[in-house]
C-alpha cells in the first residue's frame, strides 16, 4: 500500500521534473539549434526522440499493465510455456528495422557534419585546464593579416562555415556549443575538427563535456556570432597596436605591476619592459599546460577565467545577451567600460584566484607537475596593486 507521504513525494518530484523541463533561461538547450550544423543534429534527434518516446511509453505501459494485472493475489501459477518462434522473430526484426532506419539517417548526419571541404574560415582551438584558447591564422579574405589570439569567447562571423581545429595541451577536453553543433573531444597531440556556423548574430553558451580535473565544471565557453561587418571591426580591433597607458596614470602604475607579476604567464602583445625589450611571457616555465590566456585585448571580451566569470556587471551583461540580432554586434564591440566593469569579481580574482575557482595552485603540492601550477596561483597582491592592475587591465581593449 502506497502511503500518503510517498504519493506526495512522487507528485512533487513529477512537478519538479515538469517545471525543470520548461526552463526559459537555458542557454545550453540542445533543442534550440541556431545554425545549420546544430539543425542537422536536431532534425535527427527530433524524430528519433519521438519514435523512442512512443516505444518507451508502450513498453512502460505494458510493464505497468502486467505488474498490476498479474500481481500475486494467491492465484495458481499459470501454465509455463517455452519458445514462441514467430513472436520472438517478430520482436527481433521490428527493433532491428527501426535501428537500421535510424542508422541510415544517423550516418547521413555524421557524414554531413564531418565535411571540411566547404570551409570558409579556420580557427585553432586549444583546450587546457580550465580554459579555451582561440587563435585565428592569417586569412586575408577576412582581414586577418596577422594571427589573432583570444580566449574564453570565440568570435565568428555569421553565415560563415567555420572549421575549428581542436587540440589540447594537457588532458582530454571536449568542446560543445549546443546551439551550434555537437561535441568534439580536444585530445593532446591530435587535431580534431568541428564545424560551426551561426544563422544570426548572438552569443551561445557552451561547456567542456569531458571530465578534465578539479575545475571541469568551470571550464565554460561562449561563441559570439557577429555580422560580417561587425566581425571585420572586431578583427581590426584585435590587430590594433598596443597603446601604452597615459603617463603618470594609475593604469601606468598597473602596467608596472603587470610587468612585475603577471607577465610571467600572461602575454600582452606590444608590451615593452623598461629597458625597451618586448615583454615575452614564459607560461611554459610556470604553468603545467605551458600556456596562460593572452590578455592583449582582454576588455574586448565579456568574460574571464575560462568564461567562469563576467567582466561585465549583471546589468550590462543582460543588455548584451538580451540585445536583438541587429544591435548585439555594437553592444558586444563596445567591450568593457569603467562603468560596466564587474569590479567585484575581477578584484576577487586578482586577490585570490584559487578561492574563486578550484585549481591546483598550492605551491607546496606541486611535486607531480615539477613545481608548475595548474591554474592561477595566489599572488599576495596588495589592495593598492589590485586597484592599479584593474585600472591597467581596463585599458586593454
Amino acid at each position: 500500500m502506497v502511503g500518503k507521504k510517498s504519493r506526495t513525494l512522487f507528485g512533487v518530484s513529477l512537478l519538479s521534473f515538469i517545471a525543470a523541463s520548461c526552463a526559459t533561461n537555458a542557454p545550453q538547450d540542445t533543442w534550440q539549434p541556431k545554425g545549420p550544423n546544430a539543425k542537422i543534429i536536431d532534425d535527427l534527434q527530433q524524430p528519433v526522440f519521438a519514435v523512442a518516446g512512443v516505444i518507451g511509453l508502450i513498453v512502460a505501459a505494458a510493464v505497468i499493465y502486467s505488474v498490476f494485472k498479474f500481481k500475486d493475489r494467491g492465484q495458481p501459477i499459470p501454465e509455463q510455456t517455452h519458445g514462441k518462434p514467430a513472436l520472438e522473430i517478430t520482436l527481433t526484426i521490428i527493433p532491428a528495422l527501426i535501428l537500421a532506419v535510424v542508422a541510415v539517417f544517423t550516418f547521413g548526419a555524421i557524414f554531413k557534419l564531418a565535411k571540411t571541404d566547404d570551409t570558409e574560415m579556420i580557427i585553432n582551438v586549444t583546450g587546457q585546464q580550465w580554459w579555451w584558447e582561440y587563435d585565428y591564422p592569417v586569412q586575408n579574405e577576412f582581414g586577418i593579416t596577422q594571427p589573432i589570439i583570444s580566449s574564453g569567447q570565440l568570435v565568428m562571423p555569421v553565415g560563415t562555415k567555420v572549421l575549428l581545429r581542436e587540440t589540447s595541451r594537457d588532458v582530454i577536453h571536449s568542446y560543445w556549443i549546443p546551439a551550434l553543433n555537437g561535441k568534439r573531444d580536444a585530445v593532446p597531440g591530435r587535431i580534431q575538427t568541428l564545424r560551426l556556423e551561426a544563422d544570426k548574430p548572438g552569443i551561445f553558451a557552451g561547456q567542456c563535456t569531458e571530465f578534465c580535473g578539479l575545475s571541469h565544471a568551470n571550464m565554460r565557453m561562449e561563441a559570439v556570432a557577429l555580422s560580417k561587418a561587425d566581425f571585420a571591426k572586431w578583427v581590426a580591433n584585435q590587430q590594433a597596436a598596443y597603446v601604452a597607458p597615459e603617463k603618470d596614470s594609475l593604469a601606468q602604475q598597473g602596467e608596472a605591476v603587470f610587468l612585475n607579476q603577471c607577465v610571467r604567464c600572461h602575454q600582452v602583445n606590444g608590451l615593452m619592459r623598461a629597458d625597451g625589450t618586448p615583454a615575452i611571457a614564459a607560461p611554459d616555465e610556470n604553468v603545467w599546460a605551458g600556456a596562460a590566456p593572452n590578455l592583449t585585448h582582454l576588455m574586448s571580451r565579456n568574460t574571464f577565467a575560462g568564461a567562469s566569470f563576467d567582466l561585465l556587471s549583471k546589468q550590462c551583461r543582460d543588455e548584451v545577451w538580451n540585445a536583438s540580432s541587429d544591435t548585439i554586434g555594437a553592444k558586444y564591440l563596445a567591450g568593457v567600460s569603467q562603468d560596466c566593469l564587474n569590479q567585484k569579481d575581477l578584484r576577487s580574482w586578482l586577490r585570490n584566484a584559487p578561492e574563486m575557482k578550484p585549481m591546483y595552485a598550492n605551491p607546496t603540492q606541486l611535486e607531480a607537475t615539477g613545481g608548475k601550477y595548474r591554474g592561477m596561483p595566489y599572488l599576495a597582491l596588495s589592495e593598492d596593486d589590485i586597484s592599479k592592475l584593474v585600472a591597467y587591465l581596463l585599458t586593454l581593449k
Partner: protein
Amino acid sequence: MGMTVLSVAALIMSLFVLDQVALAGVALSMLIVAAALLGGIAVVTRDGNRQSGVTEQSTDLVSQSIWPLVTSIGVVFLALGLVISSVVFFGGIVILLAALAEWMVQSWSERASKDANYNASVRKRLLNPIEFPVLAALGLGIVIFSFSRIMLTVDKSVGTALFIVAGALVLIAGTLFAIRPNMRRSLGVAICVLGALGIIAGGVVSAVSGEREDLELAAAEGHFTHKECGPEESEYFDKLKEETLSLRSSVSATIIYQDGELIANLQGLDKPQKSITVSRSSATNIIFRNATEGEFRLVVDLGKPKTENADSDHDVDCTQLVETGGEQSLTLNIAKSSSAENHYKLFIAGAEDKQIEVVVP
C-alpha cells in the same frame, strides 16, 4: 587478522616515512580492507577455529607449504619498497597477493577430503590454468630479455652469427622432438632447460660487461638524439628508421617542396599558405613532402636558445633527407610566442631562401 594488523602498521609507517603517501596509502588501505574482510569472514564463519571447523572429511595434518615463506618475502619487499622505491613496493604487492592466493587455495583444498592426493588434484585443477601461463610468460620474458642483453654486448657480425646459430638450434631441437615423438620427456625438458639457462647465464654475463663499444659511444655522443640538419646526408640520423607513422593521422599542415617552391597546405583552406600558425606549448605535427627532384630535408629554426650568450646558434630541428615523392613527419613544440625579435621558420636545408613562416601566437 594478522595481515590486517600488519597492513595498518605499514600504512602508519608510510605516513611517517614517505612525503607522497597517496599511492602507497591507497594500496595499503585497500589491503587493510581486503584483509579485514577476509579476517572478518573467517571469524564470523569460525573458519579459523579448528575445533569447530574439523569435519569428518578433513585431513588431520596440513602438508608442508612454501607460501608462508613467500608471503614473508612479499611483506619484506613491501616494507623495503616504502623506503627504497615504488618498483620494489609494487613487486612486494604482487608477491604478497600471489602468495596469499596460493596459500588460501592450498588451505582450502586440504580440507576437501582425507585423501591428500585428491586434495592436491583439487588445488592443481583450480590453480594450474593460472600458474602455467603466468610462469611461462615470466620465463619467456626472462629468456628474451637475456637474449637481448647478449645481442647488445656482442659485436654486430657475431650477433648475426649468433642469431643464425640460435635459430638453427631451435630448428634442430624442434625437428628432434618431431621425429622422435617417443623420446623421453625428461630429455626434452632437459634440452629446453639447459638452453634457457645458457641464454640466461649469457644475459647475466652480458649485462655485467655492458653494451658493445659503438653503442656506448653512440649513447654518449647522442647519435640517436642529435639531429644533423645540414643538406648533406648525416652519418647517423639519416640512417635511423622513421618511427612516426601514428603522427600522420593528425597533422596540422602539409609542407610541400614543389617546383623549387615551399608551400603549406592547411586543412580547411583552399589556397597554399606561406605561413602556418602553431599553438604554443602544444605538440603540433606537420608533414614534409618532397615533390622536387633530389633528396631534401625540412628544417625548423626555433630561434636562439635561452642562454646568456647572445651569439649562440639557433636551435633547429629537422626531418631526415626525403627522396623525391617521399614524405616525413616533424613535430613542433614551441613554448614562446613569436615576436619581432623571436622568429620561427621552416626552410629547406641548402636552400635557405625557401621558407615558411611559423607563427606562434
